[in-house]
């Protein structure tokens, strides 16, 4: 390119283009060079680098089991714990189910018996049973709860009176006098 510019032929500048040797062309046009014998050395170093990378890739794969949570001992421990937890869960679940089933069956059989007995039994017996249940269970319980309510009511009256007394003693007289 220097020669071309020296000729000052502006029309021919950049018309030379690429000839055979790409490196010579770059040197002539841009002034950039490469070390001598670079490309033969570079070829060797590229091949070496590839071999190196291919070899180093295998050990990285082998290293994987060294990670703590992938170690064989840990794997067995984790598997055993998992099996134990699952077994325990199933066992507890089935034990609970057994209890529920038992009580449900007992309750159902009891209620069935009562219904059947009620249908088969005498009216007098049924009335006597109903009276006993009504008097013992319902009426008495109702009376007891009513009594409790009364107690609460009376108690509240007393409490309120005492509070009023306190108020009249402490606050009311003070406010009137002052």
């Amino acid at each position, binding site marked *: 390119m220097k020669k071309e510019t020296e000729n000052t032929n*502006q029309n021919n500048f950049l018309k030379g283009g690429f000839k055979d040797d*790409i490196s010579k062309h*770059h040197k002539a*046009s841009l002034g950039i*060079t490469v070390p001598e014998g670079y490309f033969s050395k570079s*070829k060797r170093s590229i091949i070496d*680098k*590839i071999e190196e990378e291919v070899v180093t890739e295998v050990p990285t794969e082998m290293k994987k089991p060294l990670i703590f949570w992938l170690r064989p001992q840990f794997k067995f421990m984790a598997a055993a714990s998992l099996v134990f937890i699952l077994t325990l869960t199933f066992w507890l679940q089935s034990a609970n189910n057994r209890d529920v089933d038992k009580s449900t069956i007992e309750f159902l059989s009891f209620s069935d018996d009562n219904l059947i007995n009620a249908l088969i039994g005498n009216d007098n017996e049924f009335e006597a049973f109903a009276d006993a249940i009504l008097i013992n269970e319902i009426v008495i319980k109702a009376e007891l709860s009513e009594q409790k309510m009364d107690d609460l009511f009376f108690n509240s009256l007393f409490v309120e009176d005492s509070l009023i007394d306190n108020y009249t003693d402490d606050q009311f007289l003070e406010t009137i006098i002052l």
Partner: protein
Amino acid sequence: MSKDEELVKKLKDPTQKEKAFSELLDVYQERLYWHIRKIVTTHENADDVLQNTFVRIYKSILKFEEKSSLHTWMYRIAYNESIRFLEKNNKKSHRNIDEVPTSNLQVLFEDAYFDGDEVHKKLHKIIAGLKEKQKRIFHMKYFEDISFRQMSEILETSESTLKSTYYSVVKIIEKKIFL
């Protein structure tokens, strides 16, 4: 079957891969080096990127689906590796993208493998002032003698656009170099 197609076939065959790769290096190493060198500026950087490019080519040859030519595919890899290298370097040195062309020129002129004169320096400065795509088109055509058809494959741009861009860039350079 073209030479490149034969080469790809051999590269995909494990029994012939090593020999074919050596052939591939003989054919394309120098061309790719110069393609990379103009992007990454110095010889040292170009050497690193060239090695990475061929390692990538070697590793991913089985993934090459031959939708484009081998030549196009390798140029794309070389370009991507160069850009990756520049981005990595810019991050390391915390440089602003706008500062890069000027600092690249400084680095180039100080490089041990630059022995250009004032005209060469002036040409470098003019090229550095071009838009990125104009620069690439000019480099590929003028310095690497890549046909417009191949270039359209690599840059995914129509041949007519490439031709008009190239000739307009040549005119710009010719005009500026004699100012």
